[in-house]
């Protein structure tokens, strides 16, 4: 247990005022090296920790400190971890999942927000925060009529600072584009990495799905839309280098499946792929147990594993070790390497979430699109 809290409790049952004062000075969870103490204060019949760590028992019970409204749970958590969690508070009439009221750190996603434990050593990468020295790029919105989907599709395009139509830029197309912008700070990250010359000034198209679970699960119309509609529209309007090595495609989770399956269907189109926490479920034998949404994914990954071909020359693959998908992603890497593709695989003590994907952007983007860092001194 946290030493300061232990000292407080050692003096006898603390008053509510003493606890108020303590937690006004100490944000929860309390982190002491690898020992983490989760805290809840309030009346309840039970309190439980719900986390998103695959393979580790969840719903661990807190223990109440006698004579107080203080509930505690101490766990060992490896350094440099990010763990998303919620607290289940049980009352006689039911229970509810809440964000940790004593923890200011939140991770947001399309479904809401979770509390975040940052274990010893973890800090937000400074390149994810706005840097006043970085020249900001610009986002413009476009709409395209898609024959593949039979309707209009909206997307946004990032134009780097000092954008010049007389230049030619590499292109990256991003699946779940609005989510990457909202939850992974991708515009800020691009501004910073371009400013630091870790990646070249580039054009980035942020596309968005309709029915995501269908379109991103190895869906032929989706691949056709990306390659035969979106890419030509971008190349028509913007000054883009017309070369495989200057084109990239990326996505996370099902978006990574969409990325790999699109590149697989259209080899020679994208020279750079970034696959984050890909939902690359497969079956060596037996049936898919991840549910019906994964059926087309499993069919694709099985086929891919049988005949990977060479969908791109250079790939970045990342996955959190707390994700259920770590096995599938680790399995993919040697297959890709054996197929002659240059692969960089990065693991992190993190889960299946947008901040994990944000924190890997520097490594991924600079691997796929190395910037002129070594040569330019302005």
């Amino acid at each position, binding site marked *: 247990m946290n030493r300061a809290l232990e000292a407080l409790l050692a003096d006898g049952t603390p008053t509510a005022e003493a606890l108020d004062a303590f937690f006004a000075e100490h944000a929860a969870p309390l982190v002491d090296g690898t020992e983490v103490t989760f805290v809840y204060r309030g009346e309840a019949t039970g309190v439980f920790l719900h986390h998103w760590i695959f393979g580790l028992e969840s719903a661990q019970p807190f223990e109440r400190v006698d004579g107080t409204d203080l509930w505690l749970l101490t766990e060992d958590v490896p350094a440099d971890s990010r763990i998303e969690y919620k607290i289940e508070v049980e009352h006689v009439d039911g229970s509810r999942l809440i964000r940790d009221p004593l923890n200011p750190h939140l991770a947001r996603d399309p479904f809401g927000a979770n509390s975040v434990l940052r274990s010893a050593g973890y800090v937000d990468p400074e390149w994810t925060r706005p840097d006043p*020295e970085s020249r900001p790029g610009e986002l413009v919105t476009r709409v395209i009529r898609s024959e593949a989907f039979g309707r209009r599709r909206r997307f946004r395009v990032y134009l780097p600072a*000092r954008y*010049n139509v*007389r*230049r030619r830029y590499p292109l990256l197309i991003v699946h779940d584009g609005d989510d990457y912008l909202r939850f992974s700070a991708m515009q800020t990250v691009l501004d910073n*990495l371009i400013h*630091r010359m*870790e990646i070249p000034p580039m054009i980035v198209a942020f596309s968005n799905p309709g029915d995501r679970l269908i379109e991103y699960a190895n869906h032929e119309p989706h691949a056709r839309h990306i390659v035969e509609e979106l890419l030509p529209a971008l190349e028509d309007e913007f000054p883009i280098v017309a070369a495989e090595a200057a084109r990239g495609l990326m996505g996370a989770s099902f978006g990574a499946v969409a990325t790999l399956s699109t590149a697989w269907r259209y080899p020679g189109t994208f020279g750079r792929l970034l696959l984050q926490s890909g939902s690359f479920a497969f079956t060596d034998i037996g049936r898919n147990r991840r549910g019906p949404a994964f059926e087309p994914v499993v069919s694709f990954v099985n086929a891919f594993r049988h005949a990977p071909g060479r969908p791109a020359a250079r790939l970045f693959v990342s996955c959190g070790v707390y994700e259920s998908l770590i096995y599938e992603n680790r399995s993919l890497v040697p297959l890709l390497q054996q197929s002659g593709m240059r692969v960089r695989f990065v693991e992190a003590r993190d889960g299946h979430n947008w901040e994990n994907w944000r924190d890997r952007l*520097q*490594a991924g983007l*600079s*691997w796929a699109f*190395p910037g*002129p*860092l*070594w*040569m*330019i*001194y*302005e």
Partner: protein
Amino acid sequence: MLLGPQRLRPSVAGALADLGVDGPVAVVTAGWQERESEIDELCEHVGCEVVDLELFRRAEELFERDPALFTALRERTGRLRKLQRLYSTRLDHAMAAARELLARPAQDDLVAMHFGGAVEAIRDLDREHLDRVEAIRAAFDEEHGVAERDDVVAARAEVARLIDGCGALAIAGGHVAVLVNRLRLFDAVASAGSRPIVAWSAGAMALADRIVLFHDSPPQGAGNAEVLRAGIGLYDGVLPLPHAKRRLRLGDPARVALFARRFAAHRCLAFDDGARLDRVGDGWAGVDGVTRLTVEGRVVPEGDR
């Protein structure tokens, strides 16, 4: 005169004023490549007439008129890049050995002996690489008679004429290889004669006797500084390190010490915003805001022991 980066704390105007230059100033922004002509901010800051030498544009036009030279240069660039990669491969191992020895907890005489040997091996590798690069360049110049080609002769004369009407030459930063190639191609520094030269960032690096690329924390790779090639050689014995605070781990004594020992024949000088170093005759005089990396791993104001 060598200056620190200009974007956040521009000081060119003050430097020119101190040099007594109030007439036209010839500027080289070839390191900015296709943004070469975007000099409005610089003009506004300098406050006197500016003559844009347009070395990047001139080179592009020259290559269009002389495709044989362009093709040959492209082949040479490919060969030099390959050479750089091969050097980098050997350098990674040599640097790793030196770092490992430097990190040993017990630094006795035997470790020191081997550390000295490891640094010497790195220096030998740097020298060997520099010799190879310059041999390729010299052979190229001789084979293709670069200085005698009609278009080059004409362009050099035009650049010299423009500089002749100016009171000083200002050389901005940017892509250091592109910049030094253009400066050499058009012989711009020699054309400046005895006129004052003010250079910053890559401009300062290009004028040194050797060009060293550096970044301690790149997102990919080990972050080993690399010798690129010889510079213009307007001065020797100094390695200007622009943006050192951002590019080098100056708070890491081991890295600082290894850098300074490796390049001990040079004073490794950090040029951050506001820094300035004046050259007088064959020496250096006024110093403002310049710091030096020492072989003991410290960063001290230039001029201090």
